[in-house]
Each structure stands twice: as C-alpha cells, then as structure tokens.
C-alpha cells in the first residue's frame, strides 16, 4: 500500500510492522512526531505495546536495556542533545550486546541553539559500539528499520537508524508500506541469547576483571566485522520479499569516472541530480552514497573507487581540529590499500543550511580543476 507520509511517520510504520513490544522515549524536536505517532497508536490500543514514560533520554535507553535484556523487541527515537544525554547508556546497550534499534533524527548540537539538520549528534557517538545507518529517503527509512532489527538480532549489536531533520523527518513522500504478513515473513520474533528466567537467576553484565574484560571487547569488534556479510544476506532476503535493496554503499553515475563524489543522507539525492546533469554535459563523474557509517564499509568503498583519481567528500558535520568525519574515516580506510586517490574534504550545510545543487557543482568543479586541495578543509558555502 502506497501512502504519502513524512520520514517520522515512516519510522512509526517501521516500528509497528516490526512488532515492537516496548517503546520508551522522551520528546525532542525534530523527533517528536515519531513519539507522538507511536504513543497515540499505543494509547488507542492499536498496538500491543507498552509505552514507558520517562524523564530523560538516559532513562529511555536504560528502560530499553532492561526490556531488551529480558527478551523484548524495543525501540526509541531521539535527536541531538537527547542523544548526547543517552551517551552512557549507548555504551551499555552495545557492551551488553542488546539488539536495540533506535532512530536518531540528525540535528545540530548547541550552542548556538539550532534544530536543523547536521550529523554532528550521531557522529559524536561513533565509538559507542552502535551500528549506524544513514537514510536518503522515507522509503529507505521504513525499510532500514525492518532490516535493522534483523541485523541487530543476528549480530547482537544495537543499531542507530539516522535520518535528516526536516528534510526527511517532516517532509512527505510516497512510501510503499508493506503488509504485516509480508514483514512477519521477513522478520522472525526476537529470541534473546540469554533468556531471562526467574527460576534460574543470573546476573547480567556483572563486574569483569582485567582477566576477561579485554576478550569481551574483542568479541564486540568481531561482531562488528560480521555486519557486512550479515547485512548483505539480510538485504538479499529483504529483496526477495520487497524488491528493494540499498547496500552499505551505492555507486551511481559514470562507469569509469576519474572523480567520485561521496555523500551520505539526503545530500545524496541532490548529488544524483548534479551528477546526472554533469554527465549530460560530458563530464565523467560518478557518485557514491555511504549508507553505513559503522562499521565503516572500507572494503566496499575500496571496491567502488577503483580507478578513480580524485574523491570529493561532502561532510555535513565537523570534528573541530580535524574536519569532516566521513573524509577522515575514508582516509583511514584507504590508507592500507594500493589505490591512493586525492581526497577533497568539503564541509557544507552545518546547522541545516541548504546544500544546493549549485554548491555540489561548485565542489565537483573545484576538484576537477585542482590536482590537490589547497586546504585540508574546503568550506563549501561559507560566507567569506
């Protein structure tokens, strides 16, 4: 069934279709309508789900940690300051190997106060042990939530599904909403690794001495390393049911392009238009959409960029002192490989400023006309 819905509504549909049993969340713009939609559905009795009211995002995640531990599929959504407030519990969720799925609506972190799109919030949490998936459109949002539960429950790691504030969260698009029966065929019920049985008491995540702590961290890394393979298989199955696939990354545009444009989130949609237009003008250029940020798809990217001389990365985030975080990850990922294209690290659209087709074109022309970037960080659209 096709419906014209916002990104946040797509999230709610994804949650409903995943048969989530516990939702705990604290409202924050631009995530609020997700919580509103879900709490309304629950209050109206349309969902057999428990909604836990909490006083903070920290508690929202803590509540889900409890729910997930006892074997319940659960969900929360947040944004910006809310995500930052959850920080400690994010570590706990991954350390306890709980397959919690959360949506983060990308929003800048203040000050100055700003409610618009910016990836700094989710990227600040990159070392918490969560899988991170960035979505380009509302259909992808819904589909990614369904896939996220599958992946999380196989590798036993939590997943953060990320979408841009307003550009997706509050913008309506046609979305194909699968039926419950179809989703049930794709997504089996959740079985916890260590079932909670009152008759056989266990203490979960007990204190662990230096003798073993190390090994538990090693296991998390190993689980992360499985994600690529697991995701591919999950997506193959997803494709069988729903005829859609996304991949950890996606390459589009010219076959043997010298210059590749790398983007994530909704900027990719704009980039697709620009790349198409430039190809029509005879410029050999292609684009790569990076969907999965954690674990970083180093292998997939190395494959995709073979033969390219230059990479232009547009980051809608800033790690002060370094620059764009995607560019930084890319450099680290490519360093061991043989191919060493020149990387142009652009920063653009911070705090929700539009990344227009003109700006993207400007970035591509800059990369084409320079053999090396003049500066470590290239500021795209900065008022100079």
């Amino acid at each position, binding site marked *: 069934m096709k419906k014209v819905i916002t990104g946040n509504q797509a999230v709610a549909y994804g949650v409903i279709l995943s048969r989530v049993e516990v939702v705990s969340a604290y409202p924050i713009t631009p995530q609020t309508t997700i919580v509103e939609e879900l709490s309304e559905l629950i209050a109206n009795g349309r969902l057999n789900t428990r909604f836990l009211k909490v006083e903070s995002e920290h508690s929202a995640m803590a509540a889900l940690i409890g729910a997930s531990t006892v074997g319940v599929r659960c969900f929360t959504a947040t944004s910006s300051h809310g995500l930052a407030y959850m920080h400690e519990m994010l570590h706990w969720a991954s*350390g*306890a*190997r709980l397959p919690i799925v959360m949506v983060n609506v990308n929003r800048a972190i203040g000050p100055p106060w700003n409610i618009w799109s910016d990836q700094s919030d989710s990227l600040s949490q990159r070392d918490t042990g969560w899988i991170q998936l960035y979505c380009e459109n509302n259909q992808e949002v819904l589909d990614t939530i369904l896939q996220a539960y599958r992946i999380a429950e196989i590798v*036993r790691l939590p997943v953060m599904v990320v979408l841009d504030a307003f550009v997706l969260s509050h913008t309506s698009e046609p979305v194909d909403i699968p039926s419950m029966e179809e989703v049930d065929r794709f997504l089996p019920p959740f079985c916890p*690794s*260590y079932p909670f049985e009152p008759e056989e*008491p*266990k*203490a*979960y*995540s*007990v*204190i*662990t001495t230096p003798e*073993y702590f190390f*090994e*538990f961290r*090693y*296991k998390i890394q190993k689980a992360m390393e499985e994600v690529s393979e697991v995701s591919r298989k999950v997506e193959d199955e997803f494709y069988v049911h729903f005829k859609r696939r996304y991949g950890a990354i996606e390459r589009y545009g010219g076959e043997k392009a010298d210059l590749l444009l790398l983007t994530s989130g909704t900027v990719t949609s704009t980039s697709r238009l620009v790349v198409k237009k430039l190809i029509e003008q005879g410029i050999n250029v292609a684009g790569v959409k990076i969907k999965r940020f954690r674990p970083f798809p180093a292998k997939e990217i190395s494959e995709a960029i073979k033969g390219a001389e230059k990479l232009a990365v547009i980051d809608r985030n800033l790690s002060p002192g370094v620059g764009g975080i995607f560019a930084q990850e890319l450099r680290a990922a490519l360093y061991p490989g043989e191919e060493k294209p020149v990387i142009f690290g652009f920063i653009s659209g911070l705090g929700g400023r539009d990344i227009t087709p003109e700006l993207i074109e400007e970035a591509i022309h800059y990369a084409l006309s320079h053999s090396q970037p003049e500066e470590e960080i290239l500021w795209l659209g900065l008022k100079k």
Partner: protein
Amino acid sequence: MTKRMTFKSVSEMPEIPISMGFMDWNKTGTWRAQRPYYVDKTPPCSASCPVGNDIVSFIQKIAEEDLEGAWRVLREENPLPGVCGRVCFHPCESRCNRSFLDEPVAIHALERFVADDMELRKEKVKREIEKAKEKVAIIGSGPAGLSCAYHLARFHYPVTVFESFSLPGGMLRMGIPPYRLPREVLEREISLIESMGVEIRTGVTLGQNLDWEELKSFSAIFMATGAHLSRALGIPGEKRRGVFQGLEFLKKINSGKKVTLGERIGIIGGGNTAIDVARSVLRLGKKAIILYRRSKEEMPAFEEEISEALEEGVKIRYLVSPIQIHSRNGLKRVECLRMKLGEKDETGRRKPIPIPNSNFFIEVDSLIIAAGEEIEFSFFPKGWERREGILLTQRDGSIGVKGLFAGGDLTSLQRTVAHAIGSGKRAALAIDCYFKGRDSEETLRQILIGEGPSISIFRYLHPDERPMDSHIVRFEELNMDYFEQARRQKESKLPPKVRIKDFREVTSTLPSSLAIEEAGRCFSCGTCNGCETCYVFCPDASILKREGVFLREVDYEFCKGCGICFTECPRGAITLKEEAK
C-alpha cells in the same frame, strides 16, 4: 554452591559476562551505609481527629472492600461512627494532605458509609462486662458519657449511665435536629453500646432523684453533664413572653413538643445552635432571620451548615447587635445597633464595635436567643475548681478528687461531638489506670496520636500491633509521581425546597461504588498499604516476600542501602537512617 568459571580462550567465553548461577555469595549488605526500615507514621487526619480515629486504616479496608474490617477499625476508637460521619466538623479533612493535590478525601462520608453499611448487616455485639469488676457511674448520656461507657465496657467494667431526660443521647438528641442526625442512627448506635452490657438509666437527675450518697456504691464516677444553660444577652426585654432560649427551643421540638411561634422568627447568634434553630424554624413553616454581630467570616457555625441554611432560605443579617427588645401586642421590635469590625480578639476573630447612633428596629413575631451555652454548676459540690465557665481537669479527665473524672462540654470550650467522644475515651483509660494503680499520664503519653491530645485505645489494648511513630506526615514527604488528580465524591443532598417540608435527613449516604472509589483517593500518608512499589524498585531484590506475601521487611544481608525504596515509597512509610559506624 557457586563455582567460579575459568576460560582458556576467547572462543569459550559467552557474549557477555553473566553469572550462570546464584549470586547469594555476594553479601552486598556489607556495603550499606544507611538502613531503610518500615515504620508507620502519623497521618495528619488522625492527628487532628479529636476522637482519635484510625482514619487511614479504615479507609484502606474500604478500598479493599472489607467493610466489616473497616467497621471494626472504626469501633476500636469510636462507638458513634454513624453520628460522627454526619455531624462532626471533620478537622481531619481540613488537614488532609490530598488537598494539596486536589481536594481532601471525603472522610466523613466514608465513616458514615461504613456505619450505615453495618446497619444493613445487623451485626451482633458481644456482651463484654464482667460483674466482678469495679463498678463505674457515668452522669450524662451524651457523646462523652457514651464514649466513656463504651470503652469501659470494652475493659469489662460494669457501667451504669444516668440520664436526666427520658431518652439517652444528651445533646445528640436534644441539640441536633433530626434532619442532620436521624433518630434511628443515634438509637442504633446507643443500642449497640447497651448490648455490650452498659446499663442506661433515664429520667434520673443528679441533685433531684439521684444524690451523691447513692453514687458511693460506685468505685469511680465520670461526670459528663454538658452545657445546657442558654447564655443570656443581658439586654432589657429578653425575659419577655415570646422570647425563647435557643437550646430550650431545640430540646422542645426535638422531643416532639409543640412550640407556639409567630410567622417571622428572629434568631440572635452565629453559632451552630443559631443555625440549627433557624433551619428548624423553616421546617415548621416559618421565616427565619439570623442577627449576628460580626460578619460571615467570624461565624463560629460550621461553614457547610451556614451554606445549607442559606440555600434553604434562612436570612442572615450581619454586623447587627440587639440592645433592647420591645414588645407590643405579641410583636417584637428588636432595637439594634450597627457594628463594624475592629482588631482581632483572643479567639482570632475580628471584634465587633458598635457604631454610635446607628440604632434601628427589626420587627419579628418571635425571638430566639442562641448566643451560646453555659454550664449548670448548681448541683456540684463546692470546691470543684472551675475557670472561664468550665470545670478544670487534668489531661486524663481527673478533677483532683479520688475516683472522680469529668469530660465533654462540662470541661471544654471546644464543644463538639468529637471533642466530647475524645474526652470520654481519655477518662475511660484514666479510670482503668486508676483501678489498676497505673500512672495514667504516663500511659496516656504512650498512646497519644501524634502530639495528642487524642489517644489510641487500640494501641492501649494491643501494644505490639500497628505501632505508629508520632511524626506527622507532611505533603512534601509523599511521592506525587504515584497519584493523579481525582474528583472528591460528594454525598447527594435533597433539593432545598424538599428539605424544608419536614425534618427528614438532608444528606444521603454514598453508594458503595462511589465510597470505594473515594477510599482509593486516600494517600495513606505514612502508612504502608502493601502497594509493593518498594518491592518492584529494589535493585537488590531485598524487599522480602514469603510465599507471595509481602512482609514489610528488608533483607539486610543484601540491602545496599541505596534508598530507592525510601525515595519511591508513595506514602513515606519507609524511613532511612544512617548505619551506626
């Protein structure tokens, strides 16, 4: 027993550190720096109840739909719940912590509900007295006398109550009109006291057909003769024909006697007697005008009584003071002065000050003076100490003469039914102590509710059960996360036009469904009601249950003293104290 697991390689290890056995070996109680424990504290309702009712407990029983249990709890302290539920001024409700959230719990309505419900069950009362014990005489069968007789009977003493009127009840019968307290309610509660073995002899008046000599066969005497003399205004004309005394008027009509009145009746006074008189006058088909020298704010009558009177059509003229009563052809012309309010007096009310030359006349057919009641001292032996018009007693009711005790209106200026019942209780306790040679003041101190003066007879009889800390629970000590606003249930009332047709009861008893709902509004301040919030929250599973039964006990072997139970407890029933170092 527990076994520590060792792993040689990472592949042998589970995904997460998890104990696969019991953790009992880890006695986390040794970490504790503070200790939570259950101790019931005094709710403000009970602390302010002159009777000393265990309000939280009886309401809890209603909430559990155990009405017989509720009845038993009420009867622990009060033989007249049907009376109190109707006529008490319920200071408990004024102090109810619930009023900080929405409205106080309708305690009076619940008390009445329980009492009326038990009437339907026709409970059998056990005969309690033992002939061999010391005999006690009680003079006066009002609320103080009845209460004292009831509790003495529970202590198994043979009791004889002497009443000068032909029927028992004292002011409950003579002073309170049946539209507030139906006679059958009063009679059923008195007959329950009688069926315990209390003898009530009516038509016996001390100083007339009963003298002090005859009373010598009793080992103790409790005097509760009340305050029956109407206070005179001290103005010219008040002794004329057609000028009645308020209490005399009420006594007459409440005992079925006819009173010849004109059409327009003036009533002087602002207390409950004045209101009772005015509303009774309406029910006799006459017009009632109250003349009161201060304003509505200062009226000593209970607020609800005043508003019911106004609804029914009683007129009240404020800030007027009669100075002389003129009489011509049966018509009374009351000469009045207008008043203004001055500074506060010793009662905390603003004093009326006459405005010079403001004289005016109010014409009425009859005049009833209800300016307060005084005590008839004439039949008392000389030498009994009195002050400000009352007989002086110790806190336990003793008057300094061996074996003699007193209570009720005779000994107090707080002339309410509840205060009278409370004084009867204290005297019963003092008499028991007197016979047993115990220090009654010390005994009393141990069973005070909060700071007193009310006492708990239950705790006297069962010193080890339901202990209660004297700390009075404040609203700030409750956890409002657990309570939502809910409207107070109101008893339905007859429409004013129907009420004044006769003396039928104005207010009706709450139906059971509403009473149970209302009982659910009680915070149960300071009193554990087994809600098990602590059990749910305790991160160390240290709140104990045995075979599913919640014990109100903490397992100190494992309790870390985190204090979550104390913080979460909705009603402040858990106390946290530092461990001794």
